[in-house]
């Protein structure tokens, strides 16, 4: 992911004609970048700053412009009663918020963990040479191509308590003794969400890992075979270390994606507090409960969490990549 490997443009050599040309190119590059930068500023930069600003105001849905600055009150405020007891309020002491944080982290950790394992297995299968490999690759692209909302609805039907085929299968196989309300019951709702997410995004993981696997030279394995190294040991000693950069990138992409999950949960398990994530809760406050400022505070905290994780990963990733090259 470093940009240092980029093809350098026309190399600068002696002569004023060349440097004149370079100047002209850099000038042209500036103008080429301006429209994109303005567009990103208008759709990303400015709205982000406004969202953060709203989190420090008392804005409501119908009174965005009359919003007044109230400091950190949405995050934390306290009143001291006459009895001397202090009552804390605000986002940082809101149990619904911390429940959503826990749900999001739990969801991200479990689903990305499972996707990594399954994605690795699928990638190893696709990396082997066998008849019908093209067919398998086409098949695993189907979950990836299906819109998230459609897969939420499809699985919602399959996981239906009365008429769902999953309950029917499990009853026939004797895995369960009675029908389970997968998406409605608080105990199983998170499982249902994770199952659908793993089904939907394992192909992405598998394709990224496969691209990494295909860059490993085959003769390494031939040499290991000659030395009598078992396949199991070859995987842990050769494949995994060499595919690690690609795997790390895929995992980072997926974790950042899982941390902001909204659509699958909104459709598959609506109004279930056992699956409500940070994004779902923030949108609910912003637009359904008319707590615009409070919702802005929640989305700002989510942004800070994800930004912090990104910085941490770039830092950790750099350490890892350098260690791998030595």
């Amino acid at each position, binding site marked *: *992911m470093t940009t240092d490997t980029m093809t350098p443009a026309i190399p600068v050599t002696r002569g004023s004609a060349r440097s004149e040309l370079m100047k002209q190119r850099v000038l*042209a590059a500036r103008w080429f*970048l301006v429209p994109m930068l303005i567009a*990103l500023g208008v759709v990303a930069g400015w709205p982000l700053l406004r969202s953060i600003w709203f989190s420090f105001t008392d804005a409501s849905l119908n009174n965005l412009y009359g919003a007044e600055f109230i400091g950190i009150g949405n995050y934390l405020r306290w009143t001291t009663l006459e009895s001397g007891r202090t009552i804390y309020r605000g986002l940082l002491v809101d149990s619904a918020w911390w429940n959503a944080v826990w749900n999001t982290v739990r969801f991200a950790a479990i689903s990305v963990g499972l996707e990594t394992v399954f994605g690795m297995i699928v990638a190893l299968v696709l990396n082997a040479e066998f008849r019908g490999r093209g067919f398998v690759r086409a098949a695993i692209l189907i979950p990836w191509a299906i*819109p998230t909302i459609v897969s939420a*609805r499809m699985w919602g039907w399959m996981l239906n308590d009365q008429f769902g085929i999953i309950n029917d299968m499990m009853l026939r196989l004797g895995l369960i003794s009675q029908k389970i309300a997968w998406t409605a019951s608080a105990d199983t709702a998170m499982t249902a969400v994770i199952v659908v997410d793993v089904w939907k995004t394992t192909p992405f993981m598998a394709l990224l890992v496969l691209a990494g696997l295909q860059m490993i030279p085959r003769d390494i394995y031939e040499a290991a075979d000659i030395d009598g190294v078992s396949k199991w040991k070859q995987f842990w000693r050769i494949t995994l270390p060499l595919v690690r950069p690609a795997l790390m990138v895929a995992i980072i992409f997926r974790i950042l994606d899982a941390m902001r999950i909204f659509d699958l949960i909104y459709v598959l398990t609506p109004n279930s507090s056992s699956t409500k994530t940070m994004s779902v809760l923030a*949108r609910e406050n*912003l637009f359904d409960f008319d707590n615009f400022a409070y919702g802005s505070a929640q989305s700002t905290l989510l942004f800070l969490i994800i930004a912090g994780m990104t910085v941490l990963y770039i830092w950790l990733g750099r350490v890892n990549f350098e260690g791998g090259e030595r």
Partner: protein
Amino acid sequence: MTASLAWSYTKKVGFYLLVAVIIVVSVFPFYYAILTSFKSGTDLFRITYWPTSFSWANYTAVMTQGSFPRNLLNSVFVATVTVLLALFLAITASFALSRVRFRGRSLLLMTILAVSMFPQIAVLAGLFEVIRALGIYNTPWALIFSYTIFTLPFTVWVLTTFMRDLPIEIEEAAIVDGATPWVIITRVFMPLMWPALVTTGLLAFIGAWNEFLFALTFTSSNQTRTVPVAIALLSGGTQYEIPWGNIMAASVIVTVPLVVLVLIFQRKIVSGLTAGGVKG
């Protein structure tokens, strides 16, 4: 000798069993959606693993009642315009980012990558204000405007990785002939870039076609919704009566074109998906 033969045979069977599981798990939910979409009446609530009856009733219901055809048109319009806009802005920008060396280029690329990782909810409140101020709330333009936040960084990033792999000799020859950067982009690079543009455009199209959060927030009437929102909000006469047959028919209608496109362009899509991550 026979023992090792039996072992290799077992391994082979195990491998193909694994392949079969992967295929069934990947394909079955979509197969079951198609199966359900052709059931009607009480058949819908009889669980079958194979087609037993056949009826177009769900499809005719979805396409004639309600606003689903209109939602389809909205989705096509929004996704197409979003992609064209993003590609237009991204081509020149990625030329600058991939072929010209200037200070702050790495930082700029990192920023663009960071924007594409953005949690969309973080800008939702601010975007809502901008969209209301522009007077485009509850119109397709609100979606085209807001979708730029994820299509533009993505197209810039992927086109930059494609463009920096183009041989430098072509560009040098053009410069010797006195071509300006604009001429180099439009006359020299564009003809070479078509495959990359198609791939990137297709991936961005899928992203815009599937988007839900902005579409749910920035439109408020049946006539302006896109298909993901329409499918998510499709409900029956009462709260407890979910029209599963219609939902499955609508789902199949919006998914079949995507699956066909993805299967046709599968090699290109795989290379496009991995371009940003692994090669960079």
